[in-house]
């Protein structure tokens, strides 16, 4: 039982209170623009957007899973597998590329469904089921590609281009996926069911929510989003690589958690995740601009992530 006072906060403060990560992002961006004159350049900000895209899309998918109280470690591998399948079908089998994209997305979806089946029906802990998928998807990517990167057909790799001077396709895809995530979470039956399952699975079940079916949808979405991220990644590089996106699962989860979600479930928002992914991208971009030594970069990234979230928790404690 909480002992919060039911005091109405002014809307702006309330909104900020719910978007603590945003404050951290603003502070970080302000600091970087003071330290480096290149940071605020439009081209650089677009770069940040492009660089955030893959993590953000993976993280949107992970948001669904984390809201249900689960975890998905396989998103990076599934992205790589989907990208390899796309490049392979579009080149080796000579299928028209839109069909190849559909097949790649279907592969991501299928991986998600397998995760879901193991979790919902096999009662495997999500950590184990998706860790297994992390290995399996990565292995299949290696097997299909025989370990070598596959060049993407010219047509598909336009997905990584910039339309005109200021409209990078990856950024558009990221924003689109973000809006889709927000709509699913806030407006659809499944979205609300995810919150219910994460908050109290037993209550959700006893209220007639088909928990297993909703988990199926949840992990399937995560797989589908991973596939989209894989397509974007491969398009940017004009090449699908079996080792792509290795380790991105931790980044994706970190983005979600920085964005205010809780790994114990029931909490999380698309916008928070977006901000979390931006924080990570801005941080990496800034360290490059500031020419921080490679060995120190990991230290700085660690410290800044901790500070960003600390800022949020301290602020939240101060307002409570």
């Amino acid at each position, binding site marked *: 039982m909480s002992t919060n006072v039911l005091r109405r906060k002014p809307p702006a403060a309330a909104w900020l209170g719910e978007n603590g990560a945003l404050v951290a992002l603003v502070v970080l961006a302000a600091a970087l623009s003071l330290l480096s004159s290149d940071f605020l350049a439009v081209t*650089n900000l677009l770069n940040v957007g492009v660089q955030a895209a893959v993590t953000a899309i993976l993280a949107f998918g992970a948001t669904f899973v984390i809201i249900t109280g689960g975890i998905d470690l396989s998103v990076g591998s599934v992205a790589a597998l989907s990208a390899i399948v796309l490049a392979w079908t579009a080149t080796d089998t000579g299928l028209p590329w839109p069909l190849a994209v559909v097949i790649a997305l279907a592969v991501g979806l299928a991986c998600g469904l397998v995760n879901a089946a193991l979790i919902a029906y096999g009662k495997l802990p999500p950590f184990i089921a998706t860790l297994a998928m992390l290995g399996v998807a990565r292995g299949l990517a290696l097997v299909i*590609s025989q*370990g070598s990167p596959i060049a993407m057909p010219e047509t598909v790799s336009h997905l990584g281009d910039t339309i005109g001077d200021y409209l990078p396709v990856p950024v558009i895809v990221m924003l689109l996926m973000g809006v889709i995530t927000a709509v699913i979470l806030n407006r659809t039956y499944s979205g609300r069911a995810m919150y219910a399952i994460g908050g109290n699975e037993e209550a959700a079940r006893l209220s007639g929510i088909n928990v297993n079916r909703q988990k199926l949808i949840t992990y399937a979405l995560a797989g589908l989003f991973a596939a989209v991220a894989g397509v974007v990644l491969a398009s940017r590089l004009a090449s699908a690589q079996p*080792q792509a996106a290795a380790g991105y699962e931790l980044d994706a989860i970190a983005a979600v958690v920085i964005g205010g979600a809780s790994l114990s479930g029931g909490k999380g928002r698309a916008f928070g995740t977006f901000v979390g992914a931006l924080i990570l991208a801005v941080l990496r971009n800034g360290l*490059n*601009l*500031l020419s921080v*030594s*490679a060995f120190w970069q990991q230290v700085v990234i660690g410290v800044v992530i901790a500070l960003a979230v600390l800022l949020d928790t301290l602020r939240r404690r101060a307002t409570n």
Partner: protein
Amino acid sequence: GSGSSAGGSSAAGGDVKIGMSVSTLNNPYFVQLRKGAEDEAKKQGVALTVTDAQNDASQQVNQVQNFASQSMKAIIINPVDSDAAGPAVKAAERSKIPVVAVDRVVNGATVAQTVASDNVAGGKLAAQELAKQMGEKGKVAVLQGVPGTSASRDRGQGFTEGIKAYPNIQVVAQQPADFDRTKGLDVMTNLLQSNPGVTGVFAENDEMALGAIKALGAKAGKEIKIVGFDGTPDGLKAIQAGTLNASIAQQPQLLGQQAVQGALKAAKGEKVETTVAVPVKVVTTGNVAEFAGS
């Protein structure tokens, strides 16, 4: 803490800014490469910025983009992957910034210069040297790098091609040990169980070779011949100690040095050769002294 940003006052470079994206600094080989580049930059008075792509092609693209927005005069790229580096180089091209590729080629885009030693050729050399040491007969185990990385692919391919020339040598096991010393130790230990008759080992880098040496104990370098790759300081020490029979030294410092020289020339708009081949050398007990000094 800008330990990797080397700058100096001496003449040639003026205040030229050069960015360099290294595929990974988690491997002594690339640390050496960076050192060569930094030393040369200092000598030339170039401001060199080095970033670590952590073996992640997309992070590397990000870094090259970031260099472009920092208005670097030239960019040195040590591709994580040859194909994936294409778009990054194209982006730099658009901003009219010359790019020098080092250690690995860039596919799908033109660079001003490629400074490389050939991994496939190195793999072949390794096969020849190992065969020679084994008396052209026996059983060989191969320790592979991270599956799917270009270094593992090229070295493995070179070795496989090279070893075909020796009908009395059989490759009995090939297992991944991820370029990691610990895994090299564990995998070699396990392979010895199932293949006790192995008399030769090829490791796709020196780190795994050093792990294998640990696993082989007293047999290392004696009954069982081991050939590594890279010629890292630890690898050279093992050669001196007689536990490692040979390594394919790629002179990473020289690669770094040449790359900076090429980038500087390109930045000034001077003409540069399209390829600079830095020799790969077989290091054995006989010639290890030449390398240990550098």
